[in-house]
Structure formats: structure tokens, C-alpha cells
């Protein structure tokens, strides 16, 4: 990439200084201060999606010579373009992380075209060759961790009824629901996963109502994909149900009810990105990874998780960590309307971009995408 030269040069100098400093046991600053901008759609301490990114940003703040600027609660509209402009023009940001799904197209693409020398990294987007070269998208296969949560949930549930409180039926959410359901079914063929869509990323009253409705239906293990899982975790625990967390570790909120959870590991990835730039390699435009690449992780098991469940979950984890990996979405997959969505014989591995266009719920999920 010839774009991003200015920032890369700055980072190169800094990186060299950092390496030298580290060798000498010192922690000197980057030669030229580099500013990195983070943009969040919600509050950065929401016990969820935004907090996970903020933890990653906090890991960058510890690196001398890096300045991190952050803005929260930026809607997925023109507002994000204004935020990006002001971070570039007022704060001098050269590397930007607009972290919410809806920022990507058209907003971030437009900004990346306008500022070809700066680097834009989007979480969750689907970068393609048509997009600007100074833009990139990264994401974690958190469905691997959801699959493991599903195994633990399927073996913990007494009613074999699991619940999923979801925000919107977009591919990433559907993929999590499906992975959770498939994980549960892999160990408990009777297990069903009932999904309720609340309609938006942060709707605490709806999330609480959804949690209560699911438990009224006999669901005894719940998980979610909303921005702040706190509401679901607390309300489910109060009703005596078990929970699997999402985004970050919520075990502190419900120590007895918390089984495990699917967590992001941005605090490992973001410093890696900075190192890539400093080393002159640049960040690949399309960056993906799962448990093996340490982009996602699984929360430590709670006390309610049986030995059997721990064993099954650990086995699955070992498969994901193995060299050949493990495909959650295998050939012959049928959706909950009876249609074959993946033809027999073609396993869709984690990196298959088809999976990022998912628009179905698999057999065993009760719910509909529209």
C-alpha cells in the first residue's frame, strides 16, 4: 500500500524507537506522536460491545507515543462522517477505528476516499476489492465462542429450551444465533433455541421483557446479542435462569448464574495492528480470525457448569485451536423453514465470505428473520 505513508513513517520511527527502548529496558515515546481515533455507537462502559472496543483502545493508550481520541454515542448516520472529519482535522488522527456495523458503507468508505493518506479500520464490515485500499475491515469469528457457549448451555439446560435475546436480524447476529443453536444441538439433539428480536442495539425495557417472556416459555439458559448484555444477565439471574455472556465477561453481575460467554479480545488485536504498521507491513485489508488467532475468547466456566459440559466444551475448543480448524456450518445444513442452505458436501469454513451474508436461522431455532 502506498497510502498511509505519513502515518506509517511516523509509526516506523516510533516502532524503531520502541524496539530499541525495549531492548534497553526503557519505554521511550514514539518519535512522532501518532493519534488514533476510536468511534463508538454507544457508551464505552456498557458492559458490552463498546466496552470491549474501549478496552482495546485502553491497551493502545499504554503504548508510549500513541495518543488515543475517543467519541461515544455517535449514530450510524452522517454524524459519524463529521466525527471522523473532526478527529482528522482537529486532533490529527491518522488511524481511525469506526467500530459500529452501520458506519462502514457509505460513511467510512466516503471518508477513506476523501482522505486517501489516512488509514481506516472498520470492525465488522466486508471489505472488497472495490473499496478504497486505505480502508480495511477486521472481525472476529465470535461464533466459535458462541458455539462453545451453546455446548455448555445445551448440557446445563433441564428443559432443553434455550433463549436468545437479539437486536436485529443482520448476518453477524444470525451467525451467532445459529452457532449457539448448533453447539447446543451437537451435544443435546433435543435442544431448541428461541430467539426474540428487540429491534435495536440498546432497548433495556424490551430486553428485560424479552428475557421474561422467554423464561415464561420454559427457557432456562439465555444468551444475547445486544450492545449491553447487563439487562438480560441481571433479569435472567433474578428469575433463576442461567446465562451465557456476550462481548465482555459479565460474571461479576451474576456469579451463580453465569455459565460462560463469548468475549472479544480487542486488547490483544489492536496492539498487534499497531505493530504491523510499525513494522511496515500494514494491516491486511480483510482481517479475520477466531479463537486460534486470539481475536475472541471464551469466559472462564462458572461454578454451575458440570464436569461433562466442561469436557465437551474443552474438546470443541481444542478442535477450533487445531491446525485444520473446525467448520461450524457444515454441508447439508437445513434452515428452520426446511430449506437446505448449505448443500451437502460443501463445508463452509470460518473464512468463507458466504457466511458473512447469512440470512437464515438453522433448524432448531424458533424465530424468524423478518
Amino acid at each position, binding site marked *: 500500500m502506498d497510502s498511509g505513508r505519513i502515518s506509517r513513517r511516523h509509526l516506523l520511527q516510533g516502532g524503531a524507537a520502541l524496539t530499541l527502548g525495549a531492548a534497553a529496558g526503557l519505554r521511550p515515546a514514539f518519535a512522532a506522536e501518532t493519534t488514533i481515533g476510536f468511534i463508538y455507537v*454507544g*457508551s464505552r*462502559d*456498557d*458492559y458490552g460491545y463498546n466496552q470491549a472496543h474501549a478496552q482495546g483502545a485502553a491497551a493502545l493508550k499504554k503504548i508510549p507515543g500513541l495518543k488515543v481520541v475517543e467519541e461515544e*454515542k455517535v449514530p450510524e448516520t452522517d454524524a459519524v462522517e463529521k466525527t471522523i472529519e473532526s478527529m482528522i482535522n482537529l486532533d490529527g488522527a491518522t488511524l481511525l477505528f469506526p467500530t459500529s456495523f452501520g458506519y462502514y458503507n457509505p460513511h467510512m468508505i466516503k471518508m477513506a476516499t476523501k482522505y486517501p493518506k489516512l488509514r481506516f479500520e472498520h470492525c465488522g464490515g466486508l471489505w472488497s476489492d472495490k473499496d478504497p485500499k486505505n480502508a480495511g475491515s477486521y472481525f472476529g469469528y465470535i461464533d466459535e465462542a458462541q458455539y462453545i457457549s451453546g455446548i455448555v448451555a445445551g448440557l446445563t439446560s433441564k*428443559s432443553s*429450551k434455550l433463549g436468545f435475546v437479539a437486536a436485529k436480524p443482520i448476518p453477524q447476529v444470525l451467525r451467532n444465533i445459529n452457532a449457539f443453536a448448533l453447539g447446543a444441538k451437537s451435544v443435546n439433539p433435543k435442544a431448541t433455541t*428461541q*430467539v*426474540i*428480536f*428487540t*429491534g435495536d442495539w*440498546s*432497548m*433495556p*425495557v*424490551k*430486553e*428485560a*421483557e*424479552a428475557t*421474561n*417472556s*422467554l*423464561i*415464561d*416459555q*420454559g427457557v432456562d439458559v439465555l444468551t444475547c446479542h445486544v*450492545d*449491553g448484555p*447487563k*439487562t438480560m444477565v*441481571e*433479569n435472567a439471574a*433474578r*428469575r*433463576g435462569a442461567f446465562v451465557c455472556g456476550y462481548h465482555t465477561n459479565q460474571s*461479576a*453481575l451474576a456469579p451463580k448464574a453465569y455459565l460462560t460467554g463469548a468475549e472479544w479480545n480487542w486488547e490483544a488485536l489492536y496492539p498487534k495492528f499497531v505493530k504491523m504498521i510499525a513494522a511496515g507491513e500494514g494491516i491486511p485489508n480483510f482481517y479475520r480470525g477466531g479463537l486460534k488467532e486470539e481475536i475472541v475468547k471464551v469466559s472462564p466456566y462458572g461454578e454451575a457448569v458440570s464436569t461433562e459440559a466442561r469436557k465437551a466444551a474443552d474438546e470443541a475448543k481444542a478442535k477450533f485451536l487445531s491446525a485444520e480448524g473446525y467448520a461450524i456450518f457444515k454441508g447439508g445444513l437445513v434452515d428452520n423453514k426446511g430449506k437446505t442452505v448449505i448443500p451437502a458436501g460443501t463445508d463452509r469454513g470460518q473464512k468463507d465470505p458466504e457466511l458473512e451474508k447469512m440470512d437464515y436461522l438453522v433448524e432448531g431455532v*424458533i*424465530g*424468524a428473520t*423478518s
Partner: protein
Amino acid sequence: MADGSIGLWTVPLAVLGGAIRVSTPFLFVSLGECITERAGRINLGLEGTLVMGAMSAYGISYLTGSPWLGVLAAGITGALLGALHAGICSLPRVNDVAVGIALMLFGTGLAFYLGKPLIEPTAPRLPAIDFGWWSDLPQVRAALRINVLFLIGVVLAPILYWAFRTTRWGLLIRTAGESSDAARAMGHSVLLIRLRATMVGGFLAGIGGSFLSLFYPGSWNEGLSSGQGITAVALVIFARWDPLLCLWASLAFGGAAALGPALQSVGVTSGYHLFNAAPYILTLAIMIITCSPKRTLTGAPAELSITR
């Protein structure tokens, strides 16, 4: 049933449970706004008051360990915001609707700013009274775990209804709302009456907020209100400035809010966006049915800036 499921019964039960769980903030804000509007002023800032109330209740409950002190703090915060609204509106040629919008933004902004460190900690919650002890079904028991604030709200509605009709201060509030000239001729300060009415309204709205953060959903975060304060202000018009109708309207809105998730949970999955919008569709429908081009809204205080 053997598997602990109650099938389709979930829907009416969830609507009932939702009516009880979700309605309380609507009820307190609408009763508060009812008092304020009866005195001839509109306080649109109650959305901000609700959010400030929720934040301060959570903060005080967390710091002191007593949720009831949190409720009190929420009420006082609300009353102060009410006093601010009334104070600004006392100045000549100030539009109360504009001030209300400003205070709505101020209240939510201030609450988000001060509430930052409160999102992560868990504060002690208000207790619930178990009215479902007679039932073996955990679903029924859960739906009937009722908070005292809801009961206070339910009792408050008929008391207000009675007070507006038969007590001296009820008459004073109504006089200030119907004809400020008459109130002045009786030797009362209209501004003072409105100040008190707005403060009481703010007090109640603040308590409504404390219910959100301390009982249901039961924690502080920035999406907590999702517009419930502003809906409750609209609800007062919908309820024709009658506290008893405010009670029924709040219950209907609470139940409607539970409808979307409940229908999805029993497998009615198509069009959930429509069911999620049920409260708003309900408002629009009733507004259209009851409006008339020939007369002003029945029950509207004559001094309100929207009817004058």
C-alpha cells in the same frame, strides 16, 4: 405442564405482567405532568427529569446502600429540575414548550455525564412484594412480583382525581390553569401556584425514573428511558388531563410494550417491528378517533399554551 411451559397463555400473562412492570414510569410521569398541566403549564422536560431521576436514584442507592434514599434523591432532583423549569417560565414572554425541550436535552445530557461511572457498578434494588404466592406457576408468580412504587402510583391516581375536584388546592391549581385572571382576582400568585405544581410534577417524574434504574429493568444505562418520559407527556393529552385515565392509559402502554416480545416468544414472529411499535400505534389510533376539528380537546386547561 410438565416442561414448565404455559404455551399461548404467555401472551396475556406477559401483557398483564408488562402492564404492571413497564407502566410505573409512565404512571408517575403522567400523573406529575397532569398536575403541572392542570396549573396551566406544559413541562416537556420530564423526559430529562425521568433520566436524571433514574441516574441519581441509582447513584445514591449505590453510594448509601439504601434504594429508598435513592428514590427520595430522585424525587428531589426532579423537584429541582421542575423548579428550574418554572423559574425560567416565570420570566416574561418565555415559551414553556421551548424551555421544556431545552431542559429535556439538559437533563439527559447531565445524567449521561454524571452517570458515566455508574454504568458498571450494581446498586441495591428496590424490593418487590410477592402477590403470586397463591399460584404454583413460576410464570404467574414472576408476573405478580409487584413493586411498592407501582402500588403508590395506583393509589395516587384516585387521590389526585379526588383532590382536583374537592380540595382547596385542587381548585387553586385548576383556577390557575383555566383562567389566570380569575386566580389573580382571588388574590393568588399564579406563578407561585405553577412553580409548586411543576415541582410536584418533577418530583413524581423523578420517582418514575428511580423505578427504571432500581426496579425494572433495574440498572442504569444510557438507553434506559428510550423515550418513555416524552411518551408519558403525550399520554396526559391522551388521558384528557384526568388522573384516573392516566392510570388506565399507563397500564395500556405497559401492556402494549410487552406485546412484541411476548408474541415472538410463542412463535408469532412475523411483523415483530409492528408489534414493537404497538404503543405508538395505540396513541395514534386513539388520537385520530377522539380528535375533532369542531371543538378543542375536552378537558384541556384553557391556559395551556397549546390550547390558548
